[in-house]
């Protein structure tokens, strides 16, 4: 729990950031870079791309410094900008080739794959997932794969909780349809 002096220091940093102070911006970067990077990595699932997008996000944050309201929290604001940057990246990559075995194996995951599910099925599922529209994919990644609360996903995407649930529902249905067309019955 932040103490009085810490709160005053945070407010001072946020006020200075709003006025364009580069030292305050660096201070915010140092404090939030891990969480911003982690959030982006959850969405794009590519460490190198997540690093580039973290740079892009903080550049966007700096560009928008005058619009920041110091009375509001920095983290959700940064997360929303990061989500937008990640969504732009997913859209740009949508027509590129799908994921490979290597892509899936390279992800810094927390759990080992279930041996009961064939590697080929997992790969085809990941490829089918990569073909989904980015707006559905991002909602399903955060809400289903990363199990983030719907409220946080909604705040990051700038939509309602109901819209998040609807996007997840549509993503799951489209994914199932794609897999059935490939002869895979989930």
């Amino acid at each position, binding site marked *: 729990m932040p103490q009085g002096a810490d709160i005053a220091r945070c407010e001072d940093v946020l006020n200075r950031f709003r006025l364009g102070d580069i030292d305050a911006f660096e201070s915010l970067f140092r404090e939030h870079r891990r969480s911003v*990077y982690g959030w982006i990595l959850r969405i794009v699932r590519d460490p190198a791309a997540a690093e580039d997008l973290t740079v892009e996000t903080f550049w966007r944050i700096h560009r928008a410094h005058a619009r920041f309201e110091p009375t509001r929290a920095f983290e959700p604001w940064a997360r929303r900008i990061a989500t937008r940057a990640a969504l732009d990246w997913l859209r740009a990559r949508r027509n590129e080739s799908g994921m490979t075995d290597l892509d899936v194996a390279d992800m810094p*995951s*927390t759990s080992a794959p279930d041996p009961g*599910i064939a590697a080929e099925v997992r790969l085809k599922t990941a490829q089918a997932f990569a073909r989904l529209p980015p707006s559905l994919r991002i909602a399903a*990644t955060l809400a289903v794969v990363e199990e983030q609360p719907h409220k946080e996903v909604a705040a990051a995407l700038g939509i309602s909780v109901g819209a998040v649930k609807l996007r997840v529902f549509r993503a799951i249905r489209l994914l199932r349809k794609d897999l059935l067309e490939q002869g895979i019955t989930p």
Partner: protein
Amino acid sequence: MTKQDDERMKQLLQQSLPPIDPAAEPSRDLWPAVLRRVDAEPAATSGPARQNWFDWALLVGLVVFAASFPATIPVFLYYL
């Protein structure tokens, strides 16, 4: 499709795309790259002017289109 089917699909998805390690960190210090980007494209010059120009061009295009094809106006209103 039942709720059970949905749950099975979610499990398959979680197995295919395992959650990311929450402790994952960037492999390098990104601050120099952020600073280079900020120096290359200063905050004051980009955003508003370009956005303004695009907004106006879009508005003019829509008005011209709506004037040329008035029957499409209800379709536009439906999707707003």
